[in-house]
């Protein structure tokens, strides 16, 4: 796979495809996309990675019973002015347990915006478990924006489980993240969002989770840091249509002149739906800084430790 240094940095950062400091092609199934084209693709006995014929994107099919396998499908944009929408559909077979590593990074050294809209749809079979890791990262000296708009759709069949780990590392100028899910009986959706904005960046996270099945549960936990003049909006709606449990939490640290807006919504359609929302927005607690300073850190080091821990 031929990659320049920026592309390697993106893949190492968003997809963890490293061996020490160097990029390494991972074992298992994968598709590496650079500037709108696939630069490396591999299917395995149990995981089929196939390009779509009608639009840009992939159909990824995981055979029933597949266990402990990974799929990497990261995206890198290293040219200015690229605008793409990519449609990836995941068909997860019954009784399988897999980890899917996605993520996108943009290096923009030019004057024009680069935009990646990633639309991921998950069809998760009965008794299946997936862990989906998606990291976003932007860098480069250009005036052009680094813009990422992910749309994630999750459909969980009975007794299945999905864990979504969604992280915006840094450098993304604008993002609108939309995540929707519908849950059948005895299913579980866990979302762990970590978001860091700085400069004049804007980020909007919108979740709508519909708990249709009896004993379905969801836990949406967002932790974010907003620095400088950045603005974030967190909207989480949980709809309980059956005996179910839902919890959403927005925990944000505000720095400088940044703003965070949290808009929770709970919609219980039956008395057996137990829905909870928690939100806490504020600056770094001064007692946390003082405690770490008494352990020998400077104020700046203490803030950095607190931020890094918070976004872990």
């Amino acid at each position, binding site marked *: 796979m031929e990659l320049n240094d920026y592309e390697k940095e993106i893949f190492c950062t968003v997809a963890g495809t490293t061996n020490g400091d160097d990029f390494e092609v991972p074992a298992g199934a994968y598709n590496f996309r650079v500037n709108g084209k696939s630069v490396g693709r591999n299917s395995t006995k149990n995981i089929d990675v196939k390009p779509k014929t009608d639009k840009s994107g992939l159909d990824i099919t995981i055979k029933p019973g597949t266990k402990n396998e990974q799929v990497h499908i990261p995206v890198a944009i290293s040219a200015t002015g690229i605008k793409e929408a990519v449609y990836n559909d995941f068909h997860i077979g019954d009784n399988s347990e897999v980890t899917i590593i996605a993520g996108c990074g943009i290096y923009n050294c030019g004057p024009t915006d680069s935009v990646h809209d990633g639309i991921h749809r998950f069809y998760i079979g009965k008794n299946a478990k997936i862990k989906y890791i998606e990291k976003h990262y932007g860098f480069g000296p250009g005036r052009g924006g680094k813009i990422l708009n992910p749309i994630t759709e999750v459909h969980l069949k009975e007794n299945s489980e999905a864990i979504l780990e969604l992280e915006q590392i840094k450098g993304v100028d604008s993002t609108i993240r939309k995540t929707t899910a519908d849950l059948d009986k005895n299913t579980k959706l866990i979302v762990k969002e970590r978001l860091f904005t700085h400069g004049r960046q804007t980020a909007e996270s919108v979740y709508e989770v519909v708990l249709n099945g009896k004993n379905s549960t969801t836990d949406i936990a967002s*932790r974010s840091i907003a620095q400088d003049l950045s603005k974030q909006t967190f909207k989480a709606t949980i709809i309980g249509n059956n005996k179910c449990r839902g919890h959403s939490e927005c*925990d944000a640290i505000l720095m400088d002149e940044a703003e965070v807006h949290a808009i929770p919504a709970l919609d219980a359609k039956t008395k057996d739906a137990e829905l909870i929302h928690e939100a806490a927005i504020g600056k770094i*607690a001064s*007692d*946390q800084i*003082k*405690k*770490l*300073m*008494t*352990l*020998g*850190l*400077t*104020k700046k080091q203490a803030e950095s*430790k*607190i931020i*890094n*821990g*918070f*976004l*872990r």
Partner: protein
Amino acid sequence: MLELKNICYEVKGGSRAKILDHISLRIKPGSFTVITGPNGSGKSTLADIIMGIKTPTTGKILLEDKDITNQNITKRAKDIAYSFQQPVKFKGITVYDLLNIASGELIAPEEAGEHLKNVGLNPDDYLAREINDKLSGGELKRIEIASVLARPAKLFVFDEPEAGIDLWSFDNLIKVFKKLKKEKKTIIIISHQEKILKLADEIIILEKGKIKSKGTPNTLLKTITGENHGA
């Protein structure tokens, strides 16, 4: 070792603006000093001033004859370890992380575990845990004390270490203080507890921001317990 010269601390407004009123005292190297007194007498403020968390309105602080009055917390932390009365909670920072920070270098889990054992906590149960509100007040307090014991400091200051600790853990804590005393560490403890007062080489009683009396447990303990100071 430590000398406070005419320390005053005043705040604007309030019913009693002068929190500390011309406090002078000397702490000898290797000594075990307990500062006690009624609530609101200025004990915690004095501890905060020693650590640099609060700055005195007037007066001087000398550590090993060096004026540290204007040193910030970070610089003072090279020589002074400080245990907060109210343990601080963090999201995403584990007990192991905190002990690494406290040690000033990356330490092995086994070494970090020894600090936890000192306060009666099982390393296997606690090292990987976040220091958040899922831990009880007593657990947080013991982790706070472990982080202080991990410091390579010359002077150890504990502000009400017994607060929030159950009886079983308190006995463990007494063992820790006895060990520190045996090792000739220089210790200042803010406390109301008789078992801690009994360990002191010197007891200092504060009242309304002033030193009311000083002495050994033999001379002062009866007066203190008779007057029913503290909790």
